[in-house]
């Protein structure tokens, strides 16, 4: 299978600090792939390496079949990029930025550009420096989509945006993926956004891949269960459960977070003496928090 993104043993050090630590991620073409991880996990570093801002120290990555180590810039002909803080030319007007884009990208679609520009209600002749952060993100997205990308790299683009702009942004991105089959690689802290849009996710922590999973499979593989016992179980009894990520409660009622197939979990719980097992709501954000806790990233969560 030709992946849209395929990283192989990628490493990046910053003054002795390992920002990316032997990362292997494969992103299927046409997917909306969410990248999650706490601050400093290496998300921005990874995306900046993929788009060519920084170089890997070891390993390689392939985007649309081309190595990121290729010096020829043509690899980025079909790759759009929206950073968390868009950097463009402050003295340029919005129209001049589009003009620059049309000169640099061979497949630039001017009609699509104007269509998106109008949809976002952006000003034509205002200088970039005088735009709000939200408007800069929108201009950046318009440019990233007008080049007709096969791959779109988004680095926490909706962080700090108001709900209306965020929703418009996400809708545009999802429409693009649906209509043209564009692969979206999307790093974010907002897991609600991701839950609504992504079909695959990967979690990284301290530059290492924790897991990469189809989102539906992930939801089916992690569970939050409330257990009611006839008499209080011992701590060791609960802790011995295979796949247990976390548990809380005291007395007869215990809430556990556990990984695995429910068909194999239920008999074990029965064997421990659970008289009643109730499935709790478990959203992506809670799953992420539990996984991070299991990796030792607690910070009092």
């Amino acid at each position, binding site marked *: 299978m030709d992946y849209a993104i395929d990283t192989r043993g990628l490493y990046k050090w*910053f*003054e002795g*600090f390992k*920002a990316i630590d032997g990362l292997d991620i494969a992103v299927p073409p046409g997917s909306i792939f969410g990248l999650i*991880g*706490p*601050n*400093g*996990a*290496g*998300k*921005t*570093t990874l995306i*900046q390496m993929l*788009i*060519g*801002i*920084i*170089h890997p120290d070891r390993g390689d990555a392939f985007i649309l079949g081309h190595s990121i180590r290729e*010096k*020829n*810039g*043509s*690899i*980025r*002909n079909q790759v759009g*990029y929206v*950073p968390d803080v*868009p*950097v*463009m*030319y*402050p*003295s*340029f007007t919005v129209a*001049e930025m589009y003009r*620059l*884009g049309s*000169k*640099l*990208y*061979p497949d630039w679609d001017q009609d699509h550009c104007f269509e998106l520009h109008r949809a976002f209600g952006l000003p034509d002749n205002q200088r970039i420096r005088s735009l709000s952060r939200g408007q800069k993100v929108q201009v950046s997205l318009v440019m990233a989509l007008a080049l007709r990308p096969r791959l779109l790299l988004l680095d926490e683009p909706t962080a700090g945006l108001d709900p209306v702009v965020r929703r418009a942004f996400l809708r545009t991105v999802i429409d693009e993926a649906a209509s043209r089959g564009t692969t979206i690689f999307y790093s974010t802290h907002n897991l609600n956004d991701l839950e609504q849009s992504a079909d695959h996710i990967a979690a990284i922590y301290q530059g290492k891949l924790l897991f990469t999973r189809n989102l539906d499979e992930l939801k089916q593989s992690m569970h939050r269960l409330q257990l009611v016992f006839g008499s209080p179980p011992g701590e060791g009894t609960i802790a011995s459960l295979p796949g247990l990520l976390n548990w809380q409660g005291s007395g007869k009622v215990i809430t556990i977070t556990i990984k695995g197939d429910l068909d194999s979990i239920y008999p074990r719980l029965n064997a421990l003496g659970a008289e009643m097992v109730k499935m709790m709501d478990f959203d992506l954000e809670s799953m992420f928090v539990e996984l991070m806790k299991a990796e030792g990233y607690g910070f009092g969560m």
Partner: protein
Amino acid sequence: MKIKSLLWKEWRQNRWYFLMAFLVIALQSSWGALTYYGVNQQAGVAAACAVAVGQILAPGSSAMETTAMVAAVFMAALLLAGERGSSLNYLVTTPVSRREIVISKFISGNVALITIMFIVSLFFIWAIKWYPAEYSVVEVINWSIVTTMALSCLFSLSLWVASFTQGVMISTLITAVIMALPWLLISMVTQVYRQYYQLSASLEIKLRYLQTYLFIPSYISRDGYFMGNRNEELATAGANAPFYPLEIIALALITGLCLWGAIKMLERNPLECRGEILLGGSFRQIGMILIALLNAILWAAELAPTPAWYVVYFFALWLGIYLLLYAIAWGGGWLIGKVGLDFRNYRG
């Protein structure tokens, strides 16, 4: 095609800087004439122009030439180092290679310098036609070609430095240090040599030649020739007349080398943090090695009684001063860490 687009971008982005460079250089060219006219009004404007231009063309630094050199260095730093950490991060995400980025900046800066020098030279030639001056059109053309090439060379040197530094001022400062380094090294070696041996006139002339040809501003100021004229042997060798073909070849070679270096360095430069790297080592390390080297050259001569001892002292001092600087840098870093400052600006 991509270069053409990048040139448009450079023009659109930097046109006011180019205009400012032109105004500053042009103003310096006419400033001499204005001040001369101010104190010798009976001579007339035309005479003032001719005298002022004659002063620029004569050996020795003029305000206009110094301004032009600073403008060339500053322009390259502005074009590349000034974009580091901001819009350059946008440009490298587009389908242009870093080679194309450097080449487009090289072309745009050189076109600006050539245009400025062309207009200034036209003014000089026009001044001759207006008033019989003590210089000819051929002299103006020669001066114009060599000066433009030297400015282009300084621009390339600054572009090379800007490819591994961030910030206009630090880039300009490092360019000045690198520019002066050959001159400084030869002066120091000459001084040390004199301490133990008799320096023959012919060797001194050769060293001065080397110093002149490796110090880019001397192609413009002609200070090297000026010094040489005071030496009888040099004067009889006919060396007071500049040998333009050799100068142009030397300048073209340095320019090409610096351009190649800038391309290679930017291709290697990861653009994260301050991104200050040099081939095979860190920027700070190389700075410390260099400072230790320069100090060791002079200190060893002060301490060593014989040339043999000089070699021993030189290497011992080089290592000693380097270790001292390393300890200071390490101690400073430890202290900064202790008080809780962290200058690493990597982003997760």
